[in-house]
């Protein structure tokens, strides 16, 4: 079975984002970039499925400028077999990315599509569900366990009320949550070897992205900062302040 995996290049999760002084956007110049942590989990899951003999080929896809090849190379060092870069210099939203993936699903006919549940830049949590809807596939978002059965999968999802397990016919779209696995680090020899693996670069214009762009970002601002508080010396002082100053406990 072939697995298609999405990989997004985003700000490193340890870095605090800066807003441009003119409030038009965030400022990512000279910012450390990395693979979206949820995409790392998706890549790891695909690699484990290949190690278990369930997956036969892992194809990783990223939509973006040439620099996304760094993340595609990393995914191949971790175990993906080949990569597709859908090249564009423009910012693309979840809907356009979902359309690209829907077309790739039709071309590549994967048995499973694995995407991160959200990217830590736009925090949208949309692409997998949009793709599933467009492609007429079942979806399991917030996955914390995936089990293969005959012709189907069972996926455990972390939902607000607890855990839920679904059965899905294949192909299906699964979006990964934090506790699905713990991604490995790439080993140096694998990084060297990944340089020989192929990246198929295809312009975004080759894809039939039909959705009109209805969204316009008018402003990007820094959030309101909280007032610095005070340190208290004892539990008694804390309780006193909570009662008599903040008035939050009786």
């Amino acid at each position: 079975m072939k697995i298609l995996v999405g990989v997004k290049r985003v700000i490193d999760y340890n870095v605090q984002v800066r807003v441009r002084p003119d409030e038009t956007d965030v400022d990512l110049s000279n910012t450390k970039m990395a693979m979206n942590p949820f995409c790392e989990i998706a890549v790891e899951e695909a690699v484990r499925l290949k190690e278990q003999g369930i997956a036969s080929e892992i194809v990783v896809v990223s939509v973006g400028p040439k620099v996304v090849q760094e993340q595609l190379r990393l995914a191949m060092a971790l175990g993906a077999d080949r990569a597709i870069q859908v090249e564009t210099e423009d910012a693309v939203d979840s809907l356009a990315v979902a359309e690209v993936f829907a077309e790739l699903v039709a071309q590549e006919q994967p048995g499973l599509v694995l995407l991160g549940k959200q990217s830590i830049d736009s925090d949208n949590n949309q692409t997998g569900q949009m793709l599933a809807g467009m492609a007429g596939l079942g979806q399991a978002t917030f996955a914390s366990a995936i089990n293969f059965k005959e012709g189907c999968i069972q996926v455990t999802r972390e939902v607000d009320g607890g855990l839920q397990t679904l059965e899905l016919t294949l192909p299906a779209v699964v979006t990964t949550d934090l506790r699905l696995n713990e991604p490995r680090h790439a080993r140096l020899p694998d990084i060297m070897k990944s340089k020989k693996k192929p990246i198929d670069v295809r312009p975004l214009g080759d894809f039939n992205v039909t959705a009109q762009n209805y969204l316009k970002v008018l402003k990007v601002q820094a959030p309101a900062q909280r007032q610095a508080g005070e340190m208290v010396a004892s539990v008694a002082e804390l309780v006193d302040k909570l009662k008599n100053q903040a008035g939050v406990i009786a």
Partner: protein
Amino acid sequence: MSVLVVAEHLGGVLQSGTARVVAAALQMGDGVDVLVAGHNVSEVAEQAASLAGVRAVVVVDQPNLASQLAESVCEVVLTLVDSYSHLLAAASTFGKNLLPRVAGIKRLPQLSDVIEVISADTFKRPIYAGGAIATVQNTAPLKIITVRTSAFGAVGQAAAAAYSGVSVDVNNSLTSLVSETQADAAGPELGSARVVVSGGRGMGSKENFALIESLAGRLNAAVGASRAAVDAGYAANDLQVGQTGKIVAPELYVAVGISGAIQHLAGMKESRVIVAINQDEDAPIFKIADYGLKMDLFEALPQLESALS
């Protein structure tokens, strides 16, 4: 302008987030209808009909909606949504699962986690774990939006709105429910509690995490946790607060043994009063806490409990 709000319900009870989504909806248009889709949902429909400001409730009550799968509920939404200008749901795992599927099929964008309504087509939403706030205009003929419920007050109760039953052909053969484990629902719900007490990795074990539960009981608070505490198995997954967990904004948030990573702060920094208990004076949580107590939590928690009893 008319708005369709997808109600969220569990075990025959309307979830508290829906009243907050209705509040957001009323800022976008005055014809606010609520869709209740599920099985044996007449009580949920009644609860939804009594939310102030609701024009009408549309009830789709049939056995094939019992598990409220996204694929099935999506089919229902698609048959109803064309006469509306806005489609809303809470930015809960239910809403986040459902609405983008509708958006994908309609080839329309979605705005996730809206925290402020500027006008019927312009909204604010956090990006980068709340590191920035984007103001976005959405000119789509149908605006599909998930609402961050902690950012809106709930509407009150009013005389019951009209409700009508509709039946919809649902053909989902893609997914089925295998099992569900409900977390035990002791104490108030995390998303709407007035007080939240959260424990982090500093708790050290599942057994020690009981100290958090006990303090929460004393304060009639909901229990929360950091990702590290959930990953380590101290607390259930549905208690995770943060960028990728639940977003809360209670009157009082008490963070115990939590360092204050940006991903955690993203889920609680809108709380009115924040208390941090941590033995490391350099812990970033102290930078946003209203009251910081630098102390070993194993000393502080018993003292706090007895001071409150």
